Structure formats: C-alpha cells, structure tokens
C-alpha cells in the first residue's frame, strides 16, 4: 500500500486547503496572507485582499464597530480571542456568517507583529443560534403571560372586597405561597342568602396549579348555589361533596362553613366543618376552637358532618383559617395551634382587621417572610351595641 502517498507532508496544501479559512494580517489590520478556502468561501481574490484591504473592512458596518470596541482590544489585551461571531461581506453581495479565532504572533522581543485568524463558516450554527434565541425570547414571554394569568385567576377566586354587613365587622387576609406565581388552593367567600342571613365559607383544596384552581372555583360556586336552596350548613357541604365526586376531580378539599343569622341585635351562628380546622371563637374571656370536626369533602360518598349552634355576642369574633397558618414552618418547628390561640388571645380586644393582621404578621415572620403554603384568614366580629 502506498501509505507514504497518503501522508500529508505538503504544508502548503494543508494550509491552502484546510477545512477552515486562514488569514494573517498586520497589526493595523492589513491582510498579508490568506488561504484558498477563505477565498473560495467569500469569493474574494487574493490580489484584492493581500496588501490592499484591512480585515475589518470585510465586516459589515455593525461588525466593524464590534471589531473596534471589543474584538481588537481583547486581542491586544489577551493575545487571543475565540469564537467571535461576525458577518463577512462578500464581493458579490451577501454576507457570510463566520466564527473567528485569532491569536497574536510575537517576535523575539515579545512584541506582537501579526494577527493570525481562523475562520469557520457558521451559516448553519448561526441559524441554529438565532432560532435558540428566538425560542428563548418566546419562552420568556410565555412565562410572563402565564404568571399574569395565574395572578388574574387568583384574583378572581378571592372576593376582592368583603361585603359591608350591618352589625358585623369583617376582615380577611390571603397570602399565596411563595412568589405567588402559582394559583393556590385556598379560598373564602362571604355572601348573603336572605335578608339578615349570611354565609361565610373558607376552604382549602389540596394542591396548587390549574387543576386545583378549577376545583377551587367549583367549590366556591357550588357552595353559593347550594346555599341559595337550603340553609343547613351540613347539607350544603354534602352537596359540594356530591359535586366533587361527580366531577371526578380526584381532589378533595377541606371546608369550614358558617351560617350567620341576625336575630334582633344578636348573631345566631350555625357551623360545620368538613375536615377543616375548626374556627376559633375569640371572646374577652378566652379563646377556643368551636364546632365538631367532620370528614374531608370529595372523598366519601356520605361524609360525616355536624352542625353546631352558637351565638356570636357583641365584640366576639369567629376566626377561620387554613392550615397554611398552623403548619407554617420555621426549621423543624410548626407554628401550631397553641401559638395561634396565644396571638388571638392577645389581640382579642381589637377589631377584625387588627386580629387578622396580628396573626398574619406573626405567621409570616415565623417563616422568615417566605410562605410555603397558601395562607388564608377570615375574621367575623359582631359589632358592639
């Protein structure tokens, strides 16, 4: 086998026909040597370039600015540059996107005398990169839209303002988990079912995200619809339970529901809880959870639910909350019910807003400001006489 013939011992051939362009220039940019590959790619003739043109003149105007402000200074400072993307202007018109590597050649005294540049045709790669950049921009825009959607959706699931009820002082606090860019599962609602007959509901759908959000919407609206047809809280939650099972949402929720009827100047309350933390009755004499626990909603065919009757006297408050409060964490510690009772006891003399504020501030501080779960609080206080 004439192996020797295959040996590439012609340096000139290696240079001229390399799979990349070679170009050498003086420090002022004047081209002094260029290989065949470069000429073939661009369409220039050697005699047009060598001794006649500067390398930067082969670049588009924008590229020339880039050359003078970035490329050339970097080359001077560092002795080489790598993977610089520029467009070469071809004599026949049109541009050739290329990637450049360049290095300074020094003389014996360490003074730079030449620049040596390799030129890679980057047509495909440049198209690919442009596509990547486009896709990246599109993805960023998409994300921004999604975040806006989540925020809008969130706002629609929480009543924007609590109704003004004669004889009742209401306040609520809602803090979505984390950065608020995911829709949460906590919801609350206050609405009138008849004259002097009000419904208060607060619940927690398991999970976050769009699927939880649809269940949240379903829960809120089903409760409203059911409350118009019947008044008994346990029956209303039963209806919600059926709706969830029918929907095959495969998501359960916990709900606390209270009917508040104004009788003369007093408020008669009927409470039920479907798997939800019992609301806390806050009075001047003490604080305690009130009601009887019931089953989760959306799991069993016939959930066990109980109605508890009580009275809300003037300046007394019922505080509803989601487990985002009691399960708030600081390290290995949970905020817990004891702390909640304590802060409620301390705030018991205040208005509904003051009570809600006291709790939510403490909980957020407990978690060092970053909420991991949604947090919802609703306080209903009977007005003083």
């Amino acid at each position, binding site marked *: 086998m004439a192996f020797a013939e295959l040996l590439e011992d012609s340096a000139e051939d290696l240079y001229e026909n390399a799979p990349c362009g070679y170009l050498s220039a003086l*420090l*002022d*940019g004047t081209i002094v040597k260029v290989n065949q590959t470069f000429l073939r790619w661009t369409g220039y003739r050697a005699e047009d370039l060598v001794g006649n043109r500067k390398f*930067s003149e082969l670049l*588009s*105007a*924008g*590229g*020339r*600015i*880039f050359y*003078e*402000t*970035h490329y*050339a*200074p*970097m080359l*001077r*400072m*560092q*002795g*080489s*540059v*790598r*993977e*610089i*993307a*520029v*467009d070469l202007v071809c004599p026949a018109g049109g541009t050739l*996107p290329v990637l450049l590597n360049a290095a300074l050649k*020094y003389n014996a005294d*360490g003074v730079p005398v030449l620049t040596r540049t390799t030129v890679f045709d980057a047509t495909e790669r*440049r198209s690919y*990169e442009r596509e*990547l*950049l486009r896709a990246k921009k599109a993805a960023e825009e998409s994300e921004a839209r999604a975040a806006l959607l989540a925020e809008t959706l969130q706002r629609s699931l929480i009543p924007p303002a609590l109704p003004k009820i004669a004889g009742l002082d209401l306040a609520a606090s809602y803090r979505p988990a984390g950065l608020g860019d995911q829709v949460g599962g906590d919801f609350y609602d206050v609405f009138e079912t008849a004259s002097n007959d009000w419904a208060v509901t607060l619940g927690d759908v398991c999970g976050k995200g769009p699927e939880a959000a649809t269940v949240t919407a379903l829960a809120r609206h089903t409760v409203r619809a059911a409350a118009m047809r019947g008044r008994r809280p346990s029956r209303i939650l039963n209806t919600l339970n059926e709706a969830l099972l029918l929907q095959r949402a495969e998501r359960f929720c916990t709900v606390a529901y209270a009917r508040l009827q104004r009788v003369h100047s007093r408020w008669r309350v009927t409470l039920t809880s479907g798997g939800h933390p019992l609301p806390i009755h806050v009075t001047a004499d003490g604080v305690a959870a009130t009601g009887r626990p019931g089953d989760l909603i959306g799991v069993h065919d016939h959930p066990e639910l109980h109605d508890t009757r009580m009275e809300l006297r003037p300046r007394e408050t019922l505080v509803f909350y989601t487990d985002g409060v009691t399960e708030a964490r600081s390290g290995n510690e949970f905020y817990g019910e004891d702390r909640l009772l304590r802060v409620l006891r301390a705030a018991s003399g205040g208005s509904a807003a003051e009570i809600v504020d006291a709790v939510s501030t403490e909980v957020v501080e407990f978690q060092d400001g970053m909420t991991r779960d949604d947090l919802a609080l609703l306080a209903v206080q009977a007005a003083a006489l």
Partner: protein
Amino acid sequence: MLSMAEVLERNNVTVGGRVDGQPMVFAHGFGCDQNMWRFVTPAFEDRYRIVLFDHVGSGHSDWKAYDPTRYGTLAGYATDVLEIVRALDLRDVIFVGHSVSSMIGALAAMEEPDRFASLVMVGPSPRYIDEGDYVGGFSREDIEGLLDSLDSNYLGWSNTMAPVIMGNADRPQLGAELTASFCRADPEIARHFARVTFLSDNRSDLGRISVPTLILQCSDDVIAPKVVGEYVRDSIPGSELTMMQATGHCPNLSAPDETVAAIQRFLDAPRDRV
C-alpha cells in the same frame, strides 16, 4: 445617597500612583473596562494620582446597580463620575476619557467645572449617526447591525469568556490577574449601553466646555473618523487636536507609547490655570 464606600464599590474604583499627585481619572469606553489603560497609566504613576473605574455594567462594577432609567442617557454615567470625584474629594482632575467616555467626562466637567483642570478625549465623537451635513460615520442601519452583532455574541459572552491568558513566555508582564473578565459585560446591559452610546447626540454640549481639552485622533478610526475629531476640536473653544500615527480606535492599547507621549506633552504645556 450612597456612601463613599458604596460609590467606590459600585464602580470598582482603584486608586494608585502618587498619593499627593494631581489626580488623573481614566474612563474606559464602550466594550471594555479599566484594564484597557494598563499600558498607559504606568507612565504617569510617579507624578500623578491614578484613578481608574468601571462603568456600571462593565468589568467588575456592580452590575446589579444598573438602572436602565438612570443609565438611559450619558448624563447618568456623568453623575457616577461626579460621585466618584466627590467621594475621593478630587480637585484639579485631569479626566482622560476613551470614546464615549470623552462625552461623559465633558458632561461631568460642565456640571462641576471647579473640580476639573483639563479633559483628554481619546477618539471622541459627539454623534455617531450621520444627519444632514453632519458626518458621524454611521447610518441607523449600521447601528442596528451592531446590536445584532452583540446579540450574536450573546451566547458566547454570557458564559464567561473562556479564559484566554496566553501563558506566553514572551509576555510575562501580562500577569495572571488579567483574566477573561476583560471586555465581559452583562449582555443586556451591553445592549442598552450600545444603544445609549450610539444614539447619543452631544453636539450642542461641546460649546459649553470651559476646561482645556486635548483630542487624540487616530488615523483610520472607523468609530471616530478624522472629520469627527476635527468637528469636536472646532466646537470646543480653545481645544487642540493631535493626529496620531496609530490606527484603529484604541491607541491606548495599540500604541500606548504614542498615547502617553501625546498626553504628557499636553499636560506639560504651559497653561493659565484658573
């Protein structure tokens, strides 16, 4: 209000040279950082106090301090310069500005002329885009082409420029501390800075410069061609222009000796000091 320490940190200010010398403040231009002066400043270290800094968004400045509104015009950068000058309580400042920093220095000197003794403008241009009879050297399309260039090199710039220390026995003076951070900038900030620089128009400000000014004009500078340098000289009362043999836009890098000599001549010339 930022404290002195915060200003110095924000702009990565380095101070050297003669402790009681007249201060020379060197400002880099678009695309680089304070390292671009490293072949020039040594010549002045014996006689002058040398102050170097990075514009916010370049070099080792605090990129997080970049505010698109503040830096939406060159005035924002000029404010930074004044904050540095005040933080160090500099008087009789010789401000050496490369490229767009010539204009930044001019704006600063107009704001507080008492603090500045003279201006050295290396490759200045008050406006880069042609308009009517004015030749800036570029069209609007050219500038859009530059922004495309910056975008194309975004993917390369964003993950640190690969270290390119030559490790060259011939050049031991390029110490190990010269890392690939040179000419590295946040791509978004670079794009904004490019826009602000190349769309700027400070022609009407030139007439209000009241300090002695030197313009260093390179032959064959595409960014700041001779006709622009002459326009600047003609517009600044009492200014002088030195034509250099150096070519390109960065004589402080490509011809440091010639640059130093030109500045030295200007500083040593007898002049009425106010």
